[in-house]
């Protein structure tokens, strides 16, 4: 039998083996394992606090009595354990997954945000003048740069930094400030912030106590325009 013929015979089995390996590795990445669990986030972030409290009440109703703090400890310990195991198994494949940008992590709206954030862009024309609103999420009367600020990648940048803003939040607010100053020579300051509020079910009483301004960045014309 020639080498080509031998390869033709061996190929289906080789391919089946490769596919088994791919499915095994991808199957591991698909496991619903939390990554980067932080105790602070579990005990301080309002969505997590609300969710854990709901679970504590549910457990109490079926006769399992634990405190909120115990539930946080358990969630943190089990999350860390699973996450460590996952990291160990996936270590040989990390580079491949990073270079190809592939994965099977599909947490689509896992936890609907009951404390959503509305992006707000305001300008001031003097040191003492009032803040004038240019943009507010979902506000048709303040829709400056609406197409840009609702573009999915931009939305991902600001919506992903509501609780723990990183450098790209600073850079985004600065970029927006430069655009606002560039378009209107009277603008002296630009403020970009979030208005956080609490969403409740329609059958629950409204809660306005949680409404706060967060992660505000103020830029002056001199800072953003050369």
């Amino acid at each position, binding site marked *: 039998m020639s080498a080509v013929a031998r390869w033709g015979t061996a190929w289906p089995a080789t391919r089946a083996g490769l596919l088994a390996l791919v*499915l095994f590795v991808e199957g591991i990445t698909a496991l619903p394992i939390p990554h980067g669990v932080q105790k602070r986030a579990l005990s301080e972030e309002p969505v997590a606090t609300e969710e854990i409290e709901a679970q504590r009440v549910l457990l109490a109703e079926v006769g399992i009595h634990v405190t909120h703090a115990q539930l946080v400890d358990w969630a943190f310990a089990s999350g860390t354990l699973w996450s460590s195991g996952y990291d160990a198994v996936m270590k040989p494949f990390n580079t491949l997954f990073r270079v190809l940008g592939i994965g099977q992590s599909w947490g689509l709206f896992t936890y609907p945000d009951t404390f959503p954030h509305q992006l707000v862009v305001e300008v001031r024309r003097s040191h003492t003048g009032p803040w004038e609103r240019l943009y507010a999420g979902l506000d*048709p009367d303040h829709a400056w740069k609406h197409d*840009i600020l609702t573009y999915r990648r931009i939305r*991902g940048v600001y919506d992903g930094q509501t609780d723990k803003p990183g450098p790209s939040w600073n850079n985004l607010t600065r*970029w927006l400030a430069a655009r606002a100053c560039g378009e209107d020579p009277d603008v002296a300051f630009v403020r970009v912030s979030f208005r956080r509020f609490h969403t409740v079910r329609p059958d629950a009483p409204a809660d306005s106590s949680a409404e706060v301004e967060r992660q505000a960045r103020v830029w002056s014309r001199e800072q953003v325009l050369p």
Partner: protein
Amino acid sequence: MRARVTALWALWVRLWDKQEDPVVLAVVRILLATVVLYDFLDMAHLGLVEMLFTPERGGGIPDALARTPVPELYRWFPATTGTAWLAWSVMVGCTAAFGLGFLTPLSGVIAVLVSAQLAQVLPLGDRGIDTLIRNVILILSCSSCGRRFGLDAVIFGTRRLAPAWPRHLLILQLSVMYFCAGIQKTAMSWTPLGGFAALYLILQDPAIARWPFAWLGNIYPLTQLATATTMVFEWSACFIPLVYWYRDTRERPGRLRAFINAKRPLRVWVALGVCLHVGIALTMALGIFPAAMLAVYPALVHPEEFWALVAGGKRFPFIRREAGR
């Protein structure tokens, strides 16, 4: 025991060794490339290429140079707007070539690699749908999809019979994605215990909703029904491979197999999926997510079914020629 393992292995090898017309994969290729092209052209139209993909040193918003590891794109090329435009141009060029079926495996793999680099440059701007798109393009790049309705077919010749495993992997991908999305929805509001309030809550989020939806409280039960339907749809995705297995082994006995083959529940599931994504497109500002998801749906259709579906178009000479084969 050994005989049983050998038999199972033989079954596994046979499972991935089937052949079929790659026409459906070609349709997925064209649809998905169109969606990705639209996304990148829209990005340029909005003037966001430099802002999204140039590191802050070059005037953009990513902090790519401050993270470890620095993306290869900015290890090998300078951190300038020119590099951002170069990456964008290669991405658009390769996606267009992939859609046209020109050197399909090569153009597909390059598009995946560049897209992954852009994801590393600005991770927060890279959404779950981008990962799915890369997964699907990578699978399609390993298939013969360019040899159907593509320039590769003109250059290298049409293939009317090719390995079926890429389409089977796409089916598995959809099944895994929906099922995992379902089981990870552990928030109370996705369950009866939380009153199925999830969709109502999501649509109050200004970063997600396409329109103001405060009025949804007036039709709250409908949003609860939509939430419950979403959960049923996503959880039931784990049965898709079983449905295909039953279809593939229809000659075997079993009441469940006979029932499923007779009632064709997949049609109901697909209809629900289409409604779900059309609903998302109408109510949420998630960009290309619904269109990209629906672009993969043709993979659920067997090539024979595909030709049966387009049989109505047989008055067109092109379709008559292709369907007749």
